[in-house]
Structures are given as structure tokens and as C-alpha cells.
């Protein structure tokens, strides 16, 4: 168990303690404030170099990480790997060695292969590696920002602050994750974050989209979607990963919507105060109806805007932080 990500790489939420997660959330609170200023920049990582290495296409995660790094005054090396030497058959080790030779403190990376971030962290042990999504394995900052968003909204409702509430609001909180759990790195990171923080998690999916060995996960499998919706305090939907071949795992998108889509009718089963989340990009009309996205229960935009402070917190703790720990 990692007790703090200060001075360390962030590869997976599976290995973080509750304290380590709360530390990131708490750190992000102060960066929310920075993002509200007219001049949204602090000198915390001045002179540090953060490379952004996306082997797989991404819009929001990449933009969010690069914005976060710039607001911390880091120099950002942005490499569009998908269109560079990797296409020419360069190995993962050589690509990272080349970037490392330019002199970097951290690398934010996304890769279509599970485990790629861990491999890179072994190739360049002196560089902090921030996993921006590896295959079907983990997407740690998404899990952190999802937890952060839930805490933020629930604490607002209780007229308190996220900082004061710590992890208390998660004790016994009922969270339902629906959809393509099998192919989703977001699901794996969300499950780790939520259960570590004390929430009760259920997952619901067509049998073919449940991961192998789900019985060993710290979650319950809900077979009745409607019943689970009525149970939940928070519903997290997932993108149906048709680019990972999920299409063949269900009869059709229509049928998926029929069995597991959050339609307007199904949304009525939710408690009025229940929250609806989606990591994006959404397939409107497939896993979620457009009208549900636009309802007041949906907090998708909050998730997006919290992406920057969470990634600032992760970069700050990982890159500026020494393992002994130091204040803001």
C-alpha cells in the first residue's frame, strides 16, 4: 500500500491507501480555488519539465493534463506519439529513452496496452510516471476526479467543505457502476477509489461485459438494473467501448440500451437526490439518453471541470513532493 503519492509515480489506484487518496482530494481543493482566479497560475512546478506522451488518441485527458501542468508553471513537452516514430516500429523503451534524454521530471502517458505505464516506470525509474490510462487496466486520475466530484457535491449539500468531510461522506455511500466494466479502465480505477474510501459498490452489466473474476472484486454484482437504480446514491455510467470490440459482446447497441441504457424511464427509478456520472466521451442514446445527460441530476460537466484541479494535485504531489513530505 502506498501511503502518499508524494515523490512517486501514479500507476494504479489499486495500490493507494485511503490516506493517499484523501491527500490528493484535499490538495485538489486548493487548486479549485486557483482555477477560479483571474490569473490561474501558481509557480509550484516552475522549472520542472513534464512530458505528455499519448500513444492513444485523447482529447479531454490530454488537454486537462497539459492545462494542469501549465497552471503549475511546468514546461510541457507534448509529443504526438501516435503520428511519430512509434508508427515506424520503435519500441516503448526507445521512445521513453528518447524523451528522457531531453531531460524530464515527469511523464504523463496514455497507451492502448494495459501495463504500459508500469513498464515505462521500470525503464526510467528516476522519472515520475503519471498513468493517463493504460489499456483496460487503470485510469487513476479519472477515478480520483470522480471521487473528488462526488465529495464536492455531497459536501456542498451538507453545507460543509470537502476538506472538512475527508472521507466520511463515502462511508456506506451506495455507488452503482453500469455498463462495459470488462473493457473499462475507468471502472477499475473507480472501484478502487470508491471502495478504498469506504463506499458500497455494485456493478451491473450484461454477463459478457463483466470482467473475469469479478467475484473476487470488492463489489457486488447487481443482476436487476432497475432495482439497483432505486438503491443507488450515485450512478456511474461507462462508455460502451466499441473500439475495443465490445460490439461483439452484446447483440446490438439497441439491445444494450434496452437492457442497460439509462433511459428517461429508468432515470425515474432513481432517488431524486441521486447523482448521475459519466467519464465521457458519451454515446448519447446508447448508454445514456440525451435528456438524462441534460437533467439536473447529471454532474458530467462538474467531472470535466474537476479534471484540471485533480491533475494539478497529482502532478504537484508527485513531481514537487519529496517522499519526506512538504507543504504547499
Amino acid at each position, binding site marked *: 500500500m502506498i501511503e502518499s503519492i508524494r515523490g512517486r509515480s501514479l500507476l494504479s489506484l489499486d495500490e493507494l491507501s485511503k490516506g493517499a487518496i484523501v491527500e490528493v482530494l484535499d490538495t485538489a481543493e486548493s487548486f479549485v480555488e486557483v482555477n477560479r482566479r483571474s490569473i490561474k497560475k501558481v509557480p509550484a512546478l516552475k522549472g520542472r519539465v513534464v512530458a505528455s506522451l499519448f500513444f492513444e488518441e485523447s482529447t479531454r485527458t490530454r488537454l486537462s493534463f497539459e492545462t494542469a501542468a501549465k497552471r503549475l508553471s511546468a514546461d510541457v513537452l507534448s509529443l504526438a506519439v501516435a503520428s511519430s516514430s512509434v508508427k515506424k516500429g520503435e519500441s516503448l523503451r526507445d521512445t521513453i529513452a528518447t524523451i528522457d534524454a531531453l531531460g524530464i521530471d515527469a511523464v504523463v502517458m496514455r497507451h492502448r496496452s494495459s501495463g504500459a505505464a508500469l513498464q515505462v516506470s521500470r525503464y526510467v525509474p528516476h522519472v515520475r510516471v503519471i498513468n493517463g490510462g*493504460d489499456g483496460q487496466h487503470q485510469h487513476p486520475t479519472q477515478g480520483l476526479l470522480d471521487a473528488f466530484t462526488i465529495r464536492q457535491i455531497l459536501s456542498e449539500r451538507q453545507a460543509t467543505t470537502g476538506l472538512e468531510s475527508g472521507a466520511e461522506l463515502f462511508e456506506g455511500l451506495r455507488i452503482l457502476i453500469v455498463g462495459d466494466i470488462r473493457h473499462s479502465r475507468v471502472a477499475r480505477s473507480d472501484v478502487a477509489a470508491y471502495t478504498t474510501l469506504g463506499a458500497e459498490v455494485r456493478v451491473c452489466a450484461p454477463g459478457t461485459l463483466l470482467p*473475469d473474476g*469479478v467475484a473476487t472484486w470488492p463489489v457486488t454484482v447487481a443482476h436487476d438494473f432497475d432495482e439497483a437504480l432505486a438503491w443507488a446514491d450515485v450512478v456511474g455510467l461507462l462508455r460502451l467501448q466499441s473500439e475495443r470490440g465490445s460490439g461483439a459482446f452484446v447483440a446490438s447497441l439497441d439491445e444494450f440500451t434496452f437492457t442497460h441504457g439509462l433511459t428517461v424511464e429508468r432515470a425515474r427509478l432513481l432517488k431524486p437526490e441521486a447523482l448521475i456520472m459519466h467519464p465521457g466521451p458519451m454515446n448519447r442514446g446508447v448508454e445514456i439518453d440525451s435528456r438524462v445527460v441534460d437533467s439536473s441530476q447529471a454532474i458530467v460537466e462538474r467531472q470535466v471541470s474537476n479534471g484540471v484541479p485533480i491533475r494539478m494535485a497529482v502532478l504537484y504531489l508527485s513531481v514537487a513532493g519529496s517522499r519526506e513530505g512538504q507543504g504547499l
Partner: protein
Amino acid sequence: MSTIVIRQGLVVGEHTSGVADVLIVDGRVADVAAVIDAPSDAHEVDARDCWVGPGFVDLHTHLREPGRESAETIESGARAGALGGYCALVAMPNTEPALDSVALVSFVLERGARTPLDIAVAGAITIGRRGESLAPLAEMAALGVRLFTDDGIGVQDPSMMRRALTYAKPLGVRLAQHCEDERLAAGGTMNEGSLSGSLGLIGRPALAEELMVQRDIELVRLTGSPLHFLHLSTRRSLEMVLRARDEGLPVSFEVAPHHFTLDESACSSYDPVFKVHPPLRSPGDVEALRQSLCDGVIDAVATDHAPHAPELKDLAFDEAPAGMLGLEHAASLTFEALGASADPGVFFAVLSRGPARIAQLRREDGRVRHSAHGGAMAVGDDANVTVFDPGCHWSVDRTTLASRSMNTPYDGRPMVGRVRATIAKGRLVVDEGLLT
């Protein structure tokens, strides 16, 4: 040819063992006796506390030549084999191009003849190993090929496999199958289970192997044609084949050292050095294989030595090719798995006599191209002899291997037991653990 005398080792015969000297003259075992008065120019091999038995035979070596010489050549693979105690290697046909014709088989046999070992060839069952049309098995058999396989992939189409078995039977050859139903394996990269689920890696289910094992047992029952099962990796595969063998069906099988020493948990590192097909299995499967080895019911330990150039193992786990090195540590791992009370008879049975029988490399198989292997350590045998030191402690260093590649999953691992000397076709090719 030189004269060699192996002093005071435990000479492991087919049924009995005893401490003795072994004299080798002109490529043959000239004498086995308590004390031999050897000529003064004889090369002395000190085998005190060592096991002396028939040289090892590997049924499953990927020598990569032709086509992937950056990973291995017949020459470098033979050196690695000699260090591992092997006197004969069966070269797998998944080269580029595949060994599916007289010309290609002849090329490998000729290159092999330049090495000190016997290099036998397993020909492809189908043209290009594509599983679509029969390769010229009879022509290749006429060159001395006795094993045929599309290894790397199994023959997926049951009707093709049935036809191949039926065609092979009167030729006196044996087919060998890499059992994995590729549709069920679904492009997976590690054993399917809760670990693959949490690592986000696509699983290759045990069932993909077991279904093809079951299918092929039934095809053997139907055709009466002998079949060798390559690298069985699960408890149930083993049970099915053992049952079929007990029923009298002409089946044989091998297991690979990595499948009885490493389990799927190694994949948690995402280090592609642990990627292999069939994949590293559950701890229960590993233990079942190890136990069967100790029980003496396994026909052969085969390496599935699969060199890959370093840059290919520096890719992401799902992008890297499958396979790991085996020749230089297979005997040590087999010895270790046999445990403290290791039976030297079983040791030489699985590493030499069993595989020699399956590859038809024994004296009674009447081979002309190769010398005889898997003998009884009797006077008159061709001198293919391995001296194994069960007390030697060493550790694997991937940078000093004779193989051209470094993809051993055992780098830095302490080992017990090591090949001290290899005498292949009467020549001392490894002495004191080093190539001569």
C-alpha cells in the same frame, strides 16, 4: 576421435544406477566399469557426485533459422543446447518461411550437421502452417523427418487435423499438436482468470487448450494415428492425456519447465518476458504438473526454447511476441522440481529417453542420419552423454547466455544443479560447465 573417460559418476542406466567409470572411444561407449584403466591421452572428466546418463534430447526448440537470425541461429541454438546438456534438438518449423518443403528441411539439416549436436527437424503439417492444405509429409519423411507440427498454432480445423493424422499414419511419423483453440483464446495474452480481469489483459482460457486436447484424443481414437501433445499446461489437459494413454491410445506428451515452475502471478509485472503460449497458468496447474513430473508419469520435458530479439520484448505486454528461452536452464529447473529426493532415473527419462523415443532417435529406431540417443549407457551405444552435477549452485545471467537472445524469465534466479559436461557424438563439447 578422442578418447574420454568419465570418472566415478553415478551412471544412470535404464533400470539401474551405479557409480562407475565410462570410457568413450571413437564416438562410442567402449566400457563401463568400476575402475577403468584409460589410455594416458584420454581426456578425464571428473564426475564425482555427478549423474552420468544419456545426453538430453529437446523435442521443442525454436532455432529461428531461416528468417529470424537476429534472435537465434542453428549454430547459436546448438551452443545453448550443448550448455544445457542437450545432444539432440528437434528444430520447430515455425521459421520464416515455415519448414514445409524438402528444400527448407534440407537447409536446416545441412546447417545442423555443421554443429556438434544432432539437429532433427519437425516439419510443418500444413503449407505455411496456415492449416489449409497438407504439406508434403511423405517427401519430408523420406529425408528422415519423424515429427510434424504447425507449432505456434494448432491445426484449428478438425477435418484438416483428421486428414493429416490419417495421411501420416502409414508414413510411420508422428504429428505433434500445439493445443489451443485460437477462436476461444481470442487474442488473449495471459491465463484467463481473476488476475487477467484485474490487470486488464485479455485472457487465454485453459479451456482453449483443453478443448483441443479432448478433440485430438478423439481424433487419435478415430484414426489410430500417433499424436504428441506439445507443452501441456493445465491439470485437466494432463488428466485427459494420461487417461487416453492408459486406454492404450498412441499418445505422448511433454511439459515445459516454465509451466511447472512459474505461475500466472508473474504477469502482474507486465514484463513481456513472462508472455508465452500456452500462458503461465494458475498455481494449482503448476503444482499438478510438478507433481506429475515427480510421479514419473510424464513422457518428456521439452523446453519450447523461443528466442526473441530484445527489442521485441521491450514492447507492451499485449504487443510483444510470446515465448521464452529454455535450453540453458531446463535441466536445472527439472532437477529442482523433482525435489530433494530426485530420482535420477526419472530425470534422464524425461530429458533423454522419453523424448528420444518420441522423436525416433534411439538405436532401435534405425536412424541413419543421426546418431542414436536416449540409450541405456551400455557398451556400444553412440556416445551422447550428459554429466549433471546436482550439487552445483549457480544463478542465471541473461547477458552471458550462449543464446543470441536474452528473454529468459529466470534472470538472476538462483539454481541448483547444472550440466557439467556434454559429450555429443563422441566429442566433449561442454566441460566444467563451459563450451570447449
